[in-house]
């Protein structure tokens, strides 16, 4: 009796993931319906974001935040990927044994620091420096991208290291026994062996970066126009939601749900690809 009840409950609990995922998709779609039926797919290519005179109606298009999201994420990935790979290689192959543990813990703790802290640091410390170097206001795509990269580096490094660590020692030893240098062992054995996992880790970090709100919110400028240069402000989907969602009504609110739905679908696809294709059986419980 209890046994049956226990297993039923555990089944229902497992189903909550499915229910939530479908629920999120449905709820976002329903609330976005107004905007979807008004603007259709043209929403994706339109740059207008104008509220109607009486706060009703108006014209809304998602291209600016979509581009802003992709641009900041791209900058972040370009900076973060080589550094994170370097850290992962350092931790798995280069560091002397007594350094591996403390550096690993440092990396993991840094991955645990709330993203709002990265954002605040960027606003008050990095932005003035970048302003001095590149001009502009210090607030813009580049600053947002750099802070975003700093935020995802520990995450990316940790999961890439996990993938590289799956290379069996005996395989590396056989390459050394052939007279390979450390770099040759990394290039010819570790990277090819862990390739799938490494790619998966990069995609997963991309998924994390694209949905990140707080590291970017302080720094991107939250302006509804295309950036004319890397130091110019623009906005991204999460930032539009964070800063404008609470005040929006009617068609504008519905358009925000449309944006949220887009973001959710992009990240769903990205993460599903990473998990399903590249990271089968690898668990990153962080």
């Amino acid at each position, binding site marked *: 009796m209890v046994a049956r009840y226990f297993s039923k409950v555990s089944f229902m609990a497992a189903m909550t993931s499915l229910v939530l995922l479908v629920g999120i998709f449905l709820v976002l779609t329903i609330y976005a319906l107004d905007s979807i039926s008004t603007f259709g797919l043209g929403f994706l290519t339109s740059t207008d974001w104008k509220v109607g005179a009486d706060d009703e109606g108006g014209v809304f298009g998602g291209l600016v935040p979509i581009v802003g999201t992709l641009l900041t994420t791209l900058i972040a990935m370009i900076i973060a990927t080589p550094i994170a790979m370097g850290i992962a290689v350092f931790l798995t192959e280069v560091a002397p*044994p007594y350094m591996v543990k403390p550096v690993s813990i440092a990396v993991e703790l840094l991955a645990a620091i709330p993203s709002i802290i990265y954002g605040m640091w960027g606003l008050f410390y990095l932005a003035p420096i970048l302003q001095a170097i590149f001009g502009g206001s210090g607030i813009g795509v580049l600053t947002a991208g750099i802070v975003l990269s700093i935020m995802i580096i520990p995450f990316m490094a940790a999961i890439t290291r996990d993938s590289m660590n799956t290379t069996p020692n005996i395989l590396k030893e*056989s*390459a050394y*026994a*052939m*007279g390979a*240098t450390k770099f040759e062992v990394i290039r*010819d054995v570790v990277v*090819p062996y862990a390739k799938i996992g490494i790619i998966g880790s990069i995609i997963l970090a991309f998924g994390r970066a694209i949905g990140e709100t707080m590291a970017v919110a302080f720094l991107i400028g939250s302006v509804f126009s295309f950036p004319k240069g890397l130091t110019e402000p623009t906005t991204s989907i999460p930032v539009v939601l964070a800063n404008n969602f609470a005040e929006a009504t009617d068609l504008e609110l519905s358009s925000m749900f449309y944006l949220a739905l887009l973001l959710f679908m992009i990240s769903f696809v990205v993460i599903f690809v990473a998990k399903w294709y590249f990271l089968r059986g690898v668990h990153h419980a962080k």
Partner: protein
Amino acid sequence: METILEIKNFNFTYAGALEPSLKHIDLPIHTNKVTALIGPSGCGKSTLLRAMNRIHDIYPGHTYEGQILLWDQEAQKHNNILYLEKEDDMIALRQKVGMIFQKPTPFPMSIFDNVAYGLRLSGVKNHSELRDRVEVALRGAALWEEVRDRLKENGMGLSGGQQQRLCIARAVALKPSILLFDEPTSALDPKSTRAIEELIEELKQEISIVIVTHNMQQAVRISDYTGFMYLGDLVEYDTTENVFNLPKNELTKDYVMGRFG
């Protein structure tokens, strides 16, 4: 010269360990013979083997004492490999002293590239030379007939026994003067084991061989000399025939008669 390698009064201590794992080892490795190292788990036989190509050095902090003298054909003398420090000397040593591991370790690349790997590292670029030497190595490892039509396929797709022969071909391609086998058949079925053993007997025409094995019948079948190790000591060393039939030491006697292990 009669011995390709001379180990003299050799001690080895793992990083951070207080006691040496190998104590006062004296062991000759005869040229073009098979020398087997036997003994219970943890006796130090693999540790000794891994000192002969200094593969220990890829993990820092271990200490060597004594001498491991490797015959240098060009200079016509023995050199102590424990003096090597520079990385290029280490690389040269490992190309001269090849190693085969407990499990087959094909690299994540094609069969051809696996065998060509060491050659490419050592600077062979000419494709026809590579092809020839890969073929010779694969023939030498008795694998050529089985893989000649699928050299482009991934080495991991071969059976366990084939993979191990691929690893032997990979090592043989470099024309080493010694090959170290670290329990090469422990992960293989009896048929593949037999093939590897035949191969070892074939190889000793050209190459001196040291093999660590758990399997005493294997030592009897293929080796000319046998060393019995126990708790970091080389207890007895003699011709295989003498070690198994007329052991001088009580411990050796108990071990080869299967009383412990």
